[in-house]
């Protein structure tokens, strides 16, 4: 976070998301790249921007870019990088000689795999996300209406999925 305005940081984050998507696309992972673009640039970045605007108005923060907190952050970032680099270095993957690149996976295969072999995890994730969505809606509604009528989240989810 080296920029003074928080919104600039959020936009820079969106650019880095797009860069990561480009990296995926370059590596031949079409689905992962496009999903990254759709979810992160299209949704997560918007969410972050909304959060910034709704909490502190997106005005300019403190004038000093470098502060003790920033220094501590840099140290932590370096430490995390060192640990990751060490882990990658000793892992067995780097020991292997470079194998031939995997053949590009067709979208069809990804769909079949998701719907046949991994259909249970997919359904479980879907159920959890639905539960989270309904829970969030109930929390938001209860605050506004402030009536005791708000029902607990659990029974509604099962009704919806059943």
């Amino acid at each position: 976070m080296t920029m003074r305005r928080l919104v600039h940081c959020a936009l820079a984050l969106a650019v880095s998301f797009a860069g990561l998507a480009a990296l995926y696309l370059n590596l031949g992972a079409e689905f992962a790249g496009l999903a990254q673009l759709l979810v992160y640039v299209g949704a997560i970045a918007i969410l972050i921007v909304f959060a910034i605007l709704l909490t502190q108005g997106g005005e300019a923060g403190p004038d000093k870019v470098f502060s003790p907190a920033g220094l501590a952050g840099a140290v932590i970032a370096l430490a995390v990088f060192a640990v990751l680099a060490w882990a990658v270095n000793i892992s067995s993957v780097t020991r292997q000689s470079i194998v031939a690149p995997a053949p590009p996976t067709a979208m069809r295969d990804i769909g079949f795999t998701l719907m046949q072999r991994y259909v249970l995890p997919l359904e479980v994730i879907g159920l959890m996300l639905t539960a989270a969505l309904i829970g969030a809606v109930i929390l938001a509604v209860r605050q506004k209406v402030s009536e005791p009528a708000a029902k607990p989240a659990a029974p509604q989810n099962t009704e919806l999925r059943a």
Partner: protein
Amino acid sequence: MISAGTADQIWVTLDHWLVAHTPAPLQTLVSIVISVAAIIVVFAALFALTTIFERKGLGRMQNRYGPNRVGPCGVFQPIADAVKALTKEDVVPRSADHVVHYLAPLVLVGVIFLTYAVLPVGRNMTAVNLDSGVLYFFAVSAATELAVFMAGWSSHNKYSLLGAMRAIAQMVSYEVPLLLSSIGVVMIAGTLSTVKIVEEQARTSNGLAHWYVFTPWGLAGFILFMIAATAETNRSPFDLPEGESEIIAGYFIEYSGFKFALFFLAEYIEMFAVSGLGITLFLGGWSSPVSFLGWIPSWIWFFAKLLALIFAFIWVRGTMPRLRMDQLMNFAWKFMLPMTLITMVSAGAWRFLTPAVVGPKPLGGVIRWLVCALVIFAPYITLARALERGRKIEKRVYRYAE
């Protein structure tokens, strides 16, 4: 593919001829430049055409003339508009965030032009034949929301920020039904590639093409898709983000001169792009509806359908009043979302009610059609009744000014 006529393939042939006459090391580059230039020139020209078309058409609907000063019947009005936009001073507010303010229209237009890469505008006329074309379209157009936010936030104006917030809320809400309504097509076609989806619909039997709009789920999906597309492109009756009478021009209030023209261009080319996707998914892309009209070149079919949809957009704009914010959100989450899910169920029923299940072709086809229509229609009636319950609709009384 088999009997592609000369007129049908004239642009493809021209492209190949041009590429063949360039030196070998430059051929890839030239081929790319030709595709990009063709897309930009054609759709920017269509934008100019549509502005005059819209202003005249709206004028006609509102009992006035529309532009009629430049050239015969005002047909050169777009040129005058362009000259005006180019010569106007580019005003940037002093408190604006200059870099973001400058980048926003460029990002918006650039991103929308990127989506054209996967639109098949004719037989063999797709810039990039991606295996995941539909996903690419939605992924790239997701970035427009961020560009709109950049414009609204960087202007440092409360109206523009309000407009940007409205735009984001609306676009995020309507992206869900837009995506879900196209899933039915992907389920039936079994592919995400726009080229293959069109080829799938170009097949004919008994002289009639297999357009998805002819199926019950396709018809419902097409209507839902176009409603969501209208909201996604911020066009009337979903033009709250711009709302001239409320927040002046919304997120691009602080733009002038050519940047303002860029926002206008972005709005129109986004409309073309999303209509083009609707044509690709539901209206058979470049294919003709009946086989005896197959001699008309494929690109003419595509642009004829595009112009028809543009006219529908203009017509709706001249007819419907603007929604309120709560109506907008209720419509998206309480009506559009359940209906798109039901459309998906109907598409699934269509997929599994094969002749082996419902019987041989003539009668079985009718049964299949009716069952799938019922799957959509019964929940639609129930849902509409449920949403109408408890709401008192009184007879409207109009009072004219005296």
